[in-house]
């Protein structure tokens, strides 16, 4: 009891009320952003994130649309503050924008917008959000697959003021939007982001009226302490030691050679270090990630294993350190392109789980199919004479775990709550018909518990001037099993033109003709436990439902 009083500044009841209020304020801001956005990538993929910070840029509340947006927006505010010469240079009603990969850690399409919050003339905090724009003016529509420097990936925006004291700086906004192929959507999304800042500001001020800024700060201190204590208590239960795993990405989309991802996890008492030294040097192609985002990915793996169900606060991860040497794929520096920053992260997260699985058998799972498996169609619709661009991520199989089969046809780890586009909506929008969307039989890794199945999605092209771009991964390191479980099937894509079948996993802007078929098949998840331990009941159910054929 006495230690309680030393550690905590505020009454636990008030702290809990403030904690819940912050969570619901952030969720509400995120819902408002997602529901009024223009790009499917925001409203469906929820490729966005909102945060509220106090004056010291400590995270008060966050609602992440994607799991890998676990706290790296604070960095953007700190860099901006330095750049404008200190915190005193913010004014009420200002709004800033930036997207620099080497600051935010992700690709240029992720646009961060934030504004300072003033209360009775005093700077009290910040509200920020980040959302993926469909296009950012890169060399190819959407984002390319084969860029070799960040300058091919679009307009790079350093911290830039777009509203001054509540008034838009129109020429700067025009400059940004004009560099975009889909201006209306870009402006719509920007407006939604600015509105989300305003919502955040309003909600934050309401919280100040309700609780007072000093009390909020005391509660935040306590909430962080609680989070930190939860983290520590879990890590203490992992035996001290060094845990390792490694795997390969297929290639960087430009040069066809495997890319090593190497993970070493060191546990000492209640402290954990994730050391990525030995992972590949930064690549010529786009599979590079800014350091800020690498930290986020390590946090995801950590959270998966220790506390999947509690909200994240600024107090989490204080006892975790991430080492990623500069100029490697996990700490990209200029001019490395970062368009596919998330591809190495999917593998990294799976590998951290694999490394720790011997000590965390109940919490772990076999590897999942691994990446977003992006299919992009672009061209001119013969019916309407208008150009179209469709970017889709494809679901696949997830790993089995200690008491259950892996899930089939689930979106990849880093994409979180992303929803696939309904076929009926897809066919109404694009000159392409979908002939099949189903589970890929026999693709789950066998084991006592079977890995989930990948999917088959077959597109038939209905407009002559169409190109397809593909980004499929993890054929060199398919989803592995754990404790005797076997790996899932590798991905496969067939492009069928006339009688010819071509197998491709990555391609940028390949021409396809009317009547051609693009059939994509994603991988399955890894199995868990020895296949000979599989119950006859489970095996029989798989046959009856034709998840598995008799072979």
């Amino acid at each position, binding site marked *: *009891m006495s230690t*309680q*009083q030393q550690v905590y500044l505020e*009454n*636990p*009841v008030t*702290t*809990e009320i403030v*904690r*819940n209020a912050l969570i*619901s304020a952030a969720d*509400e801001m995120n819902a408002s952003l997602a*529901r*009024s*956005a223009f*790009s499917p990538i925001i*409203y469906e993929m929820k490729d966005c994130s909102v945060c509220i910070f106090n004056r010291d840029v400590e995270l008060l509340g966050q609602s992440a649309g994607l799991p890998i947006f676990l706290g790296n927006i604070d960095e953007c505010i700190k860099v901006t503050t330095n750049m404008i010469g200190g915190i005193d240079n913010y004014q009420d009603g200002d709004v800033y924008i930036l997207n620099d990969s080497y600051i935010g850690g992700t690709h240029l399409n992720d646009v961060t917008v934030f504004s300072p919050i003033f209360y009775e003339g005093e700077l009290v905090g910040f509200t920020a959000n980040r959302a993926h724009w469909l296009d950012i003016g890169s060399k190819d529509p959407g984002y390319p697959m084969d860029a070799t420097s960040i300058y091919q990936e679009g307009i790079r925006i350093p911290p830039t003021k777009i509203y001054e004291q509540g008034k838009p700086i129109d020429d700067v906004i025009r400059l940004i939007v004009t560099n975009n192929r889909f201006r*209306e959507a870009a*402006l*719509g999304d920007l407006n*939604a982001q600015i*509105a989300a800042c*305003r*919502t955040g500001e309003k909600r934050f001020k309401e919280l100040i009226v309700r609780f007072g800024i000093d009390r909020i700060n005391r509660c935040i201190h*306590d909430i962080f*302490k*609680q989070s930190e204590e*939860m983290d520590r208590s879990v890590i203490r239960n992992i035996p001290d030691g060094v845990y390792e795993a490694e795997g390969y990405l297929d290639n960087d989309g430009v040069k066809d050679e495997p890319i090593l991802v190497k993970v070493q996890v060191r546990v000492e008492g209640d402290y954990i270090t994730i050391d990525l030294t030995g992972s590949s040097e930064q690549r010529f192609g786009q599979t590079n990630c800014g350091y800020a985002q690498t930290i986020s990915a390590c946090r*995801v793996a950590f*959270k998966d294993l220790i506390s*999947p*169900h*509690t909200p994240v606060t600024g107090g989490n991860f204080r006892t975790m350190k991430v080492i990623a040497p500069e100029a490697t794929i996990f700490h990209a520096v200029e001019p490395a392109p970062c368009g596919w920053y998330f591809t190495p992260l999917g593998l990294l997260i799976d590998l951290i*789980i694999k490394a720790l699985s011997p000590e965390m058998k109940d919490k772990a*799972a076999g590897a*999942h199919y691994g990446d977003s498996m992006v299919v992009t169609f672009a061209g001119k619709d013969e019916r309407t004479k208008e150009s179209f661009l469709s970017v889709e991520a494809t679901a696949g199989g997830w790993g089995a*775990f200690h008491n259950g089969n892996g*899930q*089939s*046809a*689930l*979106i990849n*780890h880093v994409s*979180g*709550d992303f929803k*696939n586009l*309904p*076929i*009926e909506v897809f*066919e*109404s929008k694009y000159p392409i018909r*979908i*002939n*099949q*969307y*189903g*589970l890929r039989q026999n693709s789950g890794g066998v084991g006592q518990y079977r890995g989930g199945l990948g*999917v088959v999605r077959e597109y038939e092209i209905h407009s002559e001037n169409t190109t397809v771009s593909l980004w499929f991964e993890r054929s060199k390191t398919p989803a592995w099993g754990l404790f005797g479980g076997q790996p899932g099937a590798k991905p496969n894509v067939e492009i069928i033109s006339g009688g010819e079948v071509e197998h491709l996993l990555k391609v940028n802007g390949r021409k396809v003709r009317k009547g051609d078929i693009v059939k994509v098949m994603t991988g399955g998840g890894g199995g868990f436990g020895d296949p000979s331990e599989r119950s006859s009941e489970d095996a029989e159910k798989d046959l*009856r439902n*034709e998840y598995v054929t008799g072979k």
Partner: protein
Amino acid sequence: MSRYRLGVDIGGTFTDLVVFDRLKNVYQTKKILTTPHNLAEGVLEAISHYIKDLSEIEYFVHGTTSGLNAFLERKGANVALIVTKGFRDVYEIGRANRTEMYNIQFNKPATLVKREHIYEIQERVTFDGSVVTPLDEENLQQIIGQLKDKNYDAVAVCLMHAYRNPENEVKICSIIEKELDIPVSLSSDIAREWREYERVSTTVINAYIAPIVKKYLNILEKEVEKRGFKKDIYIMQSNGGVMTSKIAKRLPLQTLMSGPVGGTIGGMNLTKLTGDPNLICVDMGGTSFDVSLIIDGQPDITAEIHMEGFPVLSPMVNIHTIGAGGGSIAWVEAGGLRVGPKSAGSSPGPACYGKGGKLPTVTDANLVLGRIDENNFLGGDIKLDKQAAIEAVKSVADQIGLSVQETAEGICDIANAKMADAIRTLTVKRGIDPRDFTLVAFGGAGPMHAVLIADLLDMKKVFIPSVSGTFSAWGMLQTDIRFDTVRNYVANINQVDYTMLESLYEEMKQESISVLNQQNIQAGDIRFQNSIDVRYEGQEYTVNIVSETNNLKKIEEDFHKAHLDIYGHNNPKGSIEIVNLRVTAFGDLEKVEYVKSGERSERQAVPASKRNVVWNNVEEETIVYSTETLTYGNYFNSPAIVEDKNSTLVIPPKHYICIDEYQNIEIVKETAEQEVLV
């Protein structure tokens, strides 16, 4: 002959009945235990308390949970699903999203139809409604062979783009119905909107509960008919209207929220009574807290909801639920005090129930604070163990270094704040200010927390209906027949084909007239409301705009304004897209007058007893009133407790309370001025 108007609502624990007796001009109510083995038995028993000759009933409306229970308990029918070739797995894949972001052992909701019962049929319609592959009838015959062999109870059919052109679905239905006597649910009937997963999910739920609802209604119809009732039974629908039991058997999906929406509809009727057009209705029970809204006298309806992880495309009263109830458990995590979402439920229940529960719950906290009485809880039916409650709360108090009393009040404060946040979620995020609303509370635990929640939201007025115990059944007696239709029509608002638009509206109107005709409503007596789902081109989510005429200019203006209200921004230059057209048809039913109390007695209420209650960490002698002695015109000031046989009303200091002419309790936050007055 036509003496009684009768409303019966089946809940999880109780079956509630409200009868209006025209002869005596009074309402009578009855609560009996629900009979889960045969729900009709409880209904008949409840009726028999007041009515011997059922031919004296002129109107019988019923809220049933038979469909909902089958769905929640996974005790529905054995369903076969027929889908377009190539799309067998759309139902199992869903939208492929993970709602639990950091859970690598995530499970999708277990499907109601397993893959082995899903059949593909050769046919294909495209997005513009043209049939590119005709229905393969030979293929259908093979499937029908399977349906017979495997003895399915029901069939669901969901074909690609059937919302645009349902002809193949209709053909399948007519062929199956020739050969088999089982209910066939077509996606184009149940949910005529695009998005194949959402539509198949909705259609499957309909098929899954269809035989159960049908069987239940058949039994009920037969039993009441035997006892002399020859008229139609009206069934409460999820959309807030009613339909006859014959229609309900065809559209069982519409009975899904038949029970829960009753409270909201009760709220809607209160608006007529009190003149307050905007209400926030809260229903708090043992495990959950439900919030719904009445805006401008109308229930807030949503076109799509999620239940148990499944999307349902059907207009329903928008009920937002969080896991907070009397049974919510308080616990400690890393030195922090948490309340819920885990609940002790009714077994073992709160520690004070003495049924083996050891963990402190919200009810235990209320008992420790003196807000409920150990000897007079729910009319004294359950005797509570105060010592057990104190010990349970102490177990948590010791861990966080607070006194038992502080902790108990803290538990209530946290629960109240969470419920207030839930109300904020439903209102603020849509641009609605809760301060413009009156809070209406019902359900066992609702009145215990309502005033405290209203204070947190700065709401000025709380209303506890006199019939709060049987509020849903009462509400059902006052609603109209309702039927919703929808057509998908995607077009830029500047390129609308008016002929098309009008023909779709006309088609829906005719469909509604036919359905309402079957429910004894003549075409001339039907009220129609047209509305249109619109969005900025490129957006996913739509905003529903009510349109009296097809004046698209006006719709455009209304949409810009609505977008600004809801999301805080709009784009007056942006191009607007229409997505769905909707028609709601209402058939008015007769209502009964509300019964007023006789004499107004403008005087201070008479206390029933006194006890010590904790307010803001200070124990204070507080007056306890009983609803049995409160009458029209009585008034008093808080702090106060009002006990009723169904619930306990807790009123913290600084409120003024009066009883209105319908025996409702009105609680108003005191302003400085009022304090002087009283």
